[in-house]
């Protein structure tokens, strides 16, 4: 099939970018979206141009490297699908695709479609863990955890840190990402001792970089792991509790 791509090209963080149009012929429906871009890049290099920079690694929807806005939707038109898992069979001949990088003050563009997502790491660094040193753990089965609870923790823990939630949120909020980590640990007995301190630190770090949540729910809709915004409610409650109790653990 034939496609027209309009891709954001930007040489460097402080340089102005622009959209450049590329015509693609002979796109196979079995290709993945990133393979389609690979083909474009091979052509660009052969034509003496610079290839389009985009991040990717695992190409199976788990590392969270890839991500771009395709026709206004983070990760493209398919629900629960990261860009690298998107296949061209979901597009039709003659489609016109506009491809943009994640946009958010906290995620400055480094080049073309590559953005800097370091603030996500800072959020986790500020408290997204259980403080347990290697070697000090009791036998794994001494803490029974019901299946439902474990499943719920896993639902939240599945977040791949791709940043689509921030990209799609009109407020550039990282609520879903942060809530997912908070909820993962808060659902488990291991996470209890630091529960309220953790949420306070993580929310405050989040707010140093990102916008606030108006509960639009856009994030949930584009999240490749379908993380639910219910977790945002849980995080808010824990945060309020931590503040009203003066940060004590409970």
């Amino acid at each position, binding site marked *: 099939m034939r496609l027209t791509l309009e891709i954001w090209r930007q040489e460097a963080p402080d340089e102005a970018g622009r959209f450049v149009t590329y015509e693609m012929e002979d796109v196979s429906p079995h290709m993945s979206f990133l393979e389609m871009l690979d083909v474009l890049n091979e052509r660009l290099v052969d034509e003496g141009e610079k290839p389009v920079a985009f991040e990717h690694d695992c190409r199976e929807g788990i590392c969270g490297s890839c991500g771009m806005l395709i*026709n*206004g939707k983070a990760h493209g038109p398919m629900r629960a699908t990261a860009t690298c898992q998107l296949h061209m069979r979901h597009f039709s001949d003659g489609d016109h695709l506009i491809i943009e990088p994640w946009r958010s003050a906290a995620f400055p563009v480094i080049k073309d479609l590559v953005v800097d997502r370091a603030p996500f790491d800072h959020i986790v660094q500020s408290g997204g863990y259980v403080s347990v040193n290697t070697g000090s753990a009791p036998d794994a089965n001494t803490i029974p955890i019901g299946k439902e609870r474990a499943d719920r923790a896993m639902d939240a823990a599945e977040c791949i840190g791709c940043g689509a939630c921030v990209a799609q949120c009109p*407020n550039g909020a990282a609520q879903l990402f942060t809530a997912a980590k908070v909820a993962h640990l808060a659902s488990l007995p291991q996470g209890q001792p630091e529960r309220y301190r953790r949420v306070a630190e993580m*929310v405050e770090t989040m707010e140093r970089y990102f916008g606030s949540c108006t509960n639009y729910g856009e994030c949930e809709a584009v999240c490749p792991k379908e993380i639910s915004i219910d977790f945002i409610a849980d995080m808010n409650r824990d*945060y309020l509790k931590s503040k009203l109790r003066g940060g004590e653990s409970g």
Partner: protein
Amino acid sequence: MGRLSDLYHSAVGKKALMAVSGIVLFGFVLVHMAGNLKLYQGAEKLNAYAAWLRQIGVPLLPETGALWVARLVLLAAVGIHIVAAYQLTRLNQRARPVGYRDRSAVQATYASRTMRWGGVIILLFVVYHLLHLTWGTVHPDFVHPEVVAGGETEYDVFHNVVTGFRVWWVSGFYIVAQLALGLHLYHGLWSLFQSLGLPNQSAQPWRRRVAAVFALVVTVGNVSFPISVLGGWVG
């Protein structure tokens, strides 16, 4: 107080305060709408209701005392709500300085996307509404309360409402404002559960339904007043 101001420094805290102020405002709107239903019981009842409002708490409180307490609470709620809304809006605009060339809402409701404009419309409405039905400033045929024999005050709220709504564009503006309020509540009521992390168990689909029902009740009630007057069923 330290904790509250601490809370206010964070956006999540601000949202919580917006939610709490939103509950207060919603409570007022709901009660206000319910009270105004007396319009359908005729002039006497409605006017008596207006008078009664001022007598709540007497003799423990001076006349209109309870009303003033309520007014202050309302005023504080409006203040917090608006200041927080403004600050959060600015924060969010800074967090997303560059928009997308092509972006459509994926699942965000129309109501959620119009919270800010909706809020402004409501604010303008309230100002107009006070000038109109409380102080009469913009009401050409306003009947002010009169002290009658026996020291009692008489109100003709019924008259003010009916004559006010007979002007078609006044009614029109009221209706538009009520629809805006309805949308604001539809998202706002759901959103406040989310902002406060209520209820304790997540995944409660009924939060949306509760929000929809209450928003609908308030809107239908309020919109019915100007329509009934225009339609000639009241007055």
